[in-house]
C-alpha cells in the first residue's frame, strides 16, 4: 500500500513537471471550453432545445477524459518503455501490477481535477446547472475514465515505437471526438457514419452525461450507454493484456 501511494505520488510529481502534459490535459480543455463559451455560450440551439454551452460542456468533459486516458497514457507509456525505464524497474521488487495500478490511479486523479476545473468554469462563468444526480454524474465519468484508459493501454501494445505513439493516439483521439458527438451532433452525420458513431464509447459517454446534466435523467435512461462503455472497457482490457509489452 505504501509502495502504491509512493508510486502515485511519483507519477503525479512527474506529471506536474511535464509542461506538455499539463498543457494538453489542463490548459487545452479549459481553453476550448472558454473559447466556445464566449463564442456560442448563450446561443439557444433551437433544434435541441438547449443552449450551446450545455451541449458543449459534456463534450469537453469527454474530450478531457480522452486526452488523459488515451493520449497521455499511450504516449507516456510508449516513451518510458522505449527509454528502458520499465526494464530498470523490473530489476527491483516493484510489482508490475503496482506500477500499472499506480499509473491508472494517477490518471484518474488527473481526470478528477480536469472535471472539477471544467465544471467550475461552466457553473461560475456560464451558469451551467447539473440537473441530475451528482453521484450518477461521477459514475459515468468513472466508467468513461476506465474505458478510455483501457483503450490507451491497449494502444500501447499496438504501438511499436515512441515515434509512432503520437500520430496513432492523435488519430484515435480525433475519430473518437469528431464521430463521437463531442463537437458535431451525431444526427447530422450520414447514415453509415452515424452507425459507426453509435458504436463508439465516446458517443455514449457524451449522451449519458448530457442526459444527466441537462435532463436530470436517472440510471434507468442511461444504463444502456454504461453497458456499451463497460463492454469497450472489457474488450480493450483484454487487448491490453494480450498485447502488453514491457520492452
Amino acid at each position, binding site marked *: 500500500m505504501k*509502495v502504491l501511494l*509512493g508510486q502515485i505520488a511519483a507519477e503525479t*510529481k512527474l506529471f506536474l*513537471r511535464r509542461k506538455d502534459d499539463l498543457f494538453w490535459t489542463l490548459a487545452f480543455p479549459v481553453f476550448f471550453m472558454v473559447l466556445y463559451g464566449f463564442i456560442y455560450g448563450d446561443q439557444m440551439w433551437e433544434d435541441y432545445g438547449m443552449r450551446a454551452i450545455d451541449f458543449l460542456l459534456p463534450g469537453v468533459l469527454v474530450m478531457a477524459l480522452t486526452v488523459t486516458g488515451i493520449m497521455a497514457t499511450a504516449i507516456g507509456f510508449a516513451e518510458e518503455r522505449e*527509454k528502458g525505464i520499465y526494464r*530498470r524497474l523490473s*530489476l527491483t*521488487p516493484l510489482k508490475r501490477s503496482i506500477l500499472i495500478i499506480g499509473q491508472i490511479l494517477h490518471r484518474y486523479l488527473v481526470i478528477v481535477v480536469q472535471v472539477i476545473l471544467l465544471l467550475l468554469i461552466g457553473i461560475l462563468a456560464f451558469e451551467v446547472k447539473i440537473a441530475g444526480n451528482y453521484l450518477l454524474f461521477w459514475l459515468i465519468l468513472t466508467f468513461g475514465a476506465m474505458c478510455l484508459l483501457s483503450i490507451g493501454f491497449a494502444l500501447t501494445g499496438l504501438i511499436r515505437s515512441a515515434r509512432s505513439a503520437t500520430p496513432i493516439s492523435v488519430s484515435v483521439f480525433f475519430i473518437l471526438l469528431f464521430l463521437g458527438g463531442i463537437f458535431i451532433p451525431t444526427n447530422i452525420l450520414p447514415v453509415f457514419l452515424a452507425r459507426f458513431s453509435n458504436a463508439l464509447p465516446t458517443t455514449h459517454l457524451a449522451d449519458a452525461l448530457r442526459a444527466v446534466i441537462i435532463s436530470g435523467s436517472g440510471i434507468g435512461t442511461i444504463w444502456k450507454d454504461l453497458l456499451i462503455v463497460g463492454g469497450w472497457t472489457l474488450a480493450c482490457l483484454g487487448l491490453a493484456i494480450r498485447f502488453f509489452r514491457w520492452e
Partner: protein
Amino acid sequence: MSAVVIVKHLTKRYGQLVAVNDVSFSIEKGEIFGLLGPNGAGKTTTVEMIEGLRKPDSGSIEVCGIDALKEPSKIKEIIGVQLQTTTIYDQIRVREVVELFGGYYQKSLPTNQILEEVYLTDKKDSFVSTLSGGLKQRLAMALALVNDPEVLFLDEPTTGLDPQARRNSWSIVENLKGRGKTIILTTHYMEEAEQLCQRVGIIDQGRIIAMDTPGNLIANSGLESTVEFSCVPEEQDRMLQRLAGIGKISRQENNRFVVHTKEFSRALQELARVSSENDLNLKNITMREATLEDLFLSLTGEKLRD
C-alpha cells in the same frame, strides 16, 4: 569463505546461436569477479540471467543460497544492478529518485549515505535531465546500492566515460571492495579488470575460456614481457656475453636491444645486477610487462571477426 553466487552449466540459445554455452563459476563473499569478453561474447547475457532479466534454457543459479530461477522475487531484494545504460525519468531530482527506489525494497539505506558513497551529495537537488554521462552512471550506481545489496552487478560501468569519470567510478568500486561487498563486473577494458578484480573469467563465443586471478593468468600464459635498452657499439660484445643468462636478446636498429622473458621481475633484477657488477653502460631502458590485454587478445584472437 562461502560462495555467494553459484552458477552451473548455464546455457542460453537464440535460434541457432548459442549465446551462453555451459558456463559455470562461483563467487566468494567479498570477492570482485570480472567477466571479460569481446562484444557479443555472452557476458551481458550471462549476468542478465543471474539478475532475472532473461531465462536460461538450462543450468542453475544460486544467489545467497536462494534458487534464482525458482524465486526471482527474493533475489531482487538482495541484489543491486547497474545496467550498461540506465535511463530513468528525466524530470525527477537525484534525491527523489533514490528515495523512490528505496521505497521498492523491504530494507533500504538512507539516501544521504548512498549519495555520499557515489559522490553525488552536491547534486542531490539536480534534475536527472541535467546530469552528464558520468554523473548519470554514478546515479545508476546509487540506485544499484539503494538496498545495500549482498551482490552488486556492474555491467560495463565505465563504457563511454571520460578518464576522470572512469577513475571516479573505480574509486567508488574500491570503496565498496573495502567494505566487503561482493561484486560481479563485466567489462571489455582490461585495465579496469586488472585494477579492480581479484579474479576474472574470460568469456568468448559463449564459453569461459580462462578463469583465475589476473596475475596468475598472465604468469601462466607463457606471454613474454620485454626490456629494451641502448648500448654503445664498443660495449656490445661484452654486454651480450654477460647478459646471455637472462633470456633471449634480439638486436634492433640504432644500437637498441630487446630482452624477451617470461619472468619479468627476475629478468629485471638480473639485468640491474649484471650491468652494475660489470659496469655496463645501458641507456634509455624501457620495459613492457605482459598485460591482461595481451593475454586477452592472445586468447580471443586479435583479428576482427563478426
